[in-house]
């Protein structure tokens, strides 16, 4: 898979955003900022900050993919009344805690 997410040959760049766009929807659910957490990919076992995931789609549905293997790590669907958070592509989330 082309790590730039697009194919230079045909000049088309696939649009994705970095994982920081997950901060808003995740802050509706979690008290800590999960974009600083380290996620381990269930597909390739690589680890990186949630902020470095590649996010496709737009509200109400976002897909966060692993920058190493391209597989889905996390999905969020937000309806007016519910949030679905799908973490089947995540082995662990290592979350820095505020110890002050």
């Amino acid at each position, binding site marked *: 898979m082309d790590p730039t997410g697009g194919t230079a040959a045909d000049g088309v760049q696939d649009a994705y955003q970095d994982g920081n766009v997950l901060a808003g929807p995740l802050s509706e659910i979690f008290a800590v900022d999960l974009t600083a957490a380290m996620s381990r990919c269930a597909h390739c076992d690589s680890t990186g900050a949630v902020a470095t995931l590649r996010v496709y789609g737009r509200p109400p549905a976002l897909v966060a993919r692993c920058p190493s293997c391209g597989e889905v790590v996390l999905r969020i669907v937000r309806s007016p009344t*519910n949030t679905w958070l799908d973490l089947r592509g995540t082995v662990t989330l290592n979350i820095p805690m505020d110890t002050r």
Partner: protein
Amino acid sequence: MPIVSRGFHGRKPDPGRKLPPGQYETFDFPVLSAGPTPRVSRDDWTFTVTTESGTRHQWDWGRLMALPAEHPTVDLHCVTKWSKFDTHWEGVSLDVLLEDVETEAEFALVHSYGGYTTNLPLEDLLDGKAWIAYRYDGEELAAEHGGPARLLVPHLYLWKSAKWVSGIQLMLEDEPGFWESAGYHEYGDPWREQRYQGD
């Protein structure tokens, strides 16, 4: 402070056209994907129908082109709330592709290059309601809109019209697809506003 868009490019929505609930009319063709755009050449493209017994029926590009084409003009309704009237397509009816397929299945799971899936009742693919579409607005279907070929099933929300379609699995029991397993409605009828599970 909400600002209501009255349509793009200075065109006004046609008040004579009926929109499904919660939708607005757009005149461009927004691109929305769950991942990078797969690049599949026509030479490499195949479409495979697999029955519940495992029997496979496969078409390559040449065999697809040899089948009778239809030219449906349909309205599109995306769950992200845009609708687009009178879109022009060319493709092969699923009635033709499934004509010689023997099956007792009631459900279909549609597969795409890139790993996307979506599920729907088999009857929603039949009786002139669905196509494998390979031309849009007189042009070859662009990769960002699902080319070389996509499913077109316009009476359901557009996430059911799988881009980059690679095959259809016929099944005795329903199985949720990519979005249906993450909160989207199992059926997705825009006229009943079936956006999310429980709608």
